[in-house]
């Protein structure tokens, strides 16, 4: 679903041939795509491995909050939709792990880093889905924010990542629409349903603004990622785009954005929000969000429960190899 600029600073790379680095940067500046067999600076490779794998982990962990409601969806139509959406997220995780593998890491080691708690995933998936309205809010807001972030990644300088993002964006376009449809049905429903929609917006609004990562003034990797055209817009620029797109959508629903300071600035043409609680963001990243432990425990259990499938696949491959050799 999404990747976040929430990384820790790189150790300095060993000095590389200045001429090669210059040639590489010239290719990037000329909008050439870098492909797996091309030479690339070690730090470019590391940055991409980290970003793509965090993105893959986010897709996979992102299945959990929504999966929580599959059995309780209010109608068969909503259940089929939710199943399809969660299935897409599993698929997106696959595309992204495969893109990361083109950089010379194995999926197994990436998964191991997630399960050991060493790898990060988007902070948003550490919040709980308490009511059905949360499924609407996730589609509308979380996927809306993810799309805002992912569209520029379709032009990322690394070819396999860019191509995976094109496929993902195309498939994800239904996710936001189905979420908004849920919100609209609730907002036009009974007083209780409308209150449920408002409650979901109240709980998801601020965490969604945090999805774009720390403010530009505190973002560690932005400059280098921009130079490498891994990133095309700053965290704050994307966040603003999301706010400007979303506030009128909330008004159409007849819901209130939970921010008393929110106002439209006619001079700039942008909606301005009150301050974001970055301490909450830091706490969630540090593992202290409402569901961090639950999410990791669920992933570990799923991984352990699936061990027999991996073993069976390997045994089958070994048997076939042995038969071919005979």
């Amino acid at each position, binding site marked *: 679903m999404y990747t976040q600029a929430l990384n820790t600073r790189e150790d300095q790379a060993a000095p590389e041939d200045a001429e090669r680095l210059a040639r590489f940067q010239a290719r990037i500046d000329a*909008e*050439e*795509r870098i*492909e797996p067999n091309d030479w690339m600076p070690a730090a470019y490779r590391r940055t991409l491995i980290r970003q793509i794998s965090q993105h893959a982990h986010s897709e996979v962990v992102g299945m959990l909050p929504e999966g929580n409601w599959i059995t309780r969806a209010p109608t068969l*139509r909503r259940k*089929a*939709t939710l199943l*399809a959406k969660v299935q*897409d997220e599993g698929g997106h995780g696959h595309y992204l792990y495969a893109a990361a593998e083109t950089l010379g890491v194995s999926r197994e080691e990436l998964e191991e880093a997630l399960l050991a708690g060493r790898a990060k995933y988007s902070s948003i998936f550490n919040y709980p889905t308490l009511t059905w309205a949360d499924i609407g809010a996730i589609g509308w807001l979380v996927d*809306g924010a993810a799309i805002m972030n992912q569209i520029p990644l379709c032009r990322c300088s690394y*070819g396999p990542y*860019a*191509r995976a993002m094109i496929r993902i964006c195309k498939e994800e*376009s*239904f996710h*936001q*629409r*189905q979420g*908004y*449809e849920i919100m*609209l049905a609730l907002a036009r429903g009974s007083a209780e349903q409308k209150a449920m929609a408002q409650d979901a917006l109240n709980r998801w609004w601020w965490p969604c603004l945090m999805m774009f990562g720390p403010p530009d003034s505190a973002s560690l990797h932005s400059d280098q990622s921009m130079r490498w055209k891994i990133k095309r817009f700053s965290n704050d620029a994307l966040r603003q785009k999301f706010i400007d797109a979303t506030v*009128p*959508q909330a008004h*159409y629903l007849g819901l209130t954005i939970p921010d008393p300071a929110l106002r439209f600035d006619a001079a700039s043409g942008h909606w301005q929000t009150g301050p974001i609680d970055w301490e909450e963001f830091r706490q969630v990243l540090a593992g202290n969000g409402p569901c961090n432990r639950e999410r990791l425990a669920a992933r570990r259990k799923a991984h352990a429960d699936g061990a027999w499938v991996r073993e069976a696949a390997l045994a089958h491959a070994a048997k076939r190899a042995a038969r071919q050799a005979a």
Partner: protein
Amino acid sequence: MPALAPLWEVFIRARNGLAHRHVGSVQAARDVYTRRGEGLSIWVVPSDAITASDPADRDALFEPTGSKIYRHPTFYTVPDEVGHM
């Protein structure tokens, strides 16, 4: 009979940023599939390394998606006033 030359499948990247696309098979030759400036780079893969399904089996692989129209964005109604989503 002399040993048979192995068959290769050829993939060409037509333009910067695009995926390689299958263009055909080749045994051994120069200037096959590349006589008119077709692209930037070539992949070749031994034909017998490709595991392929039989089109006769397509129903098992593709038919189940036919009824899942809810996987498409147009299945969901968003009022015009809300704008593009």
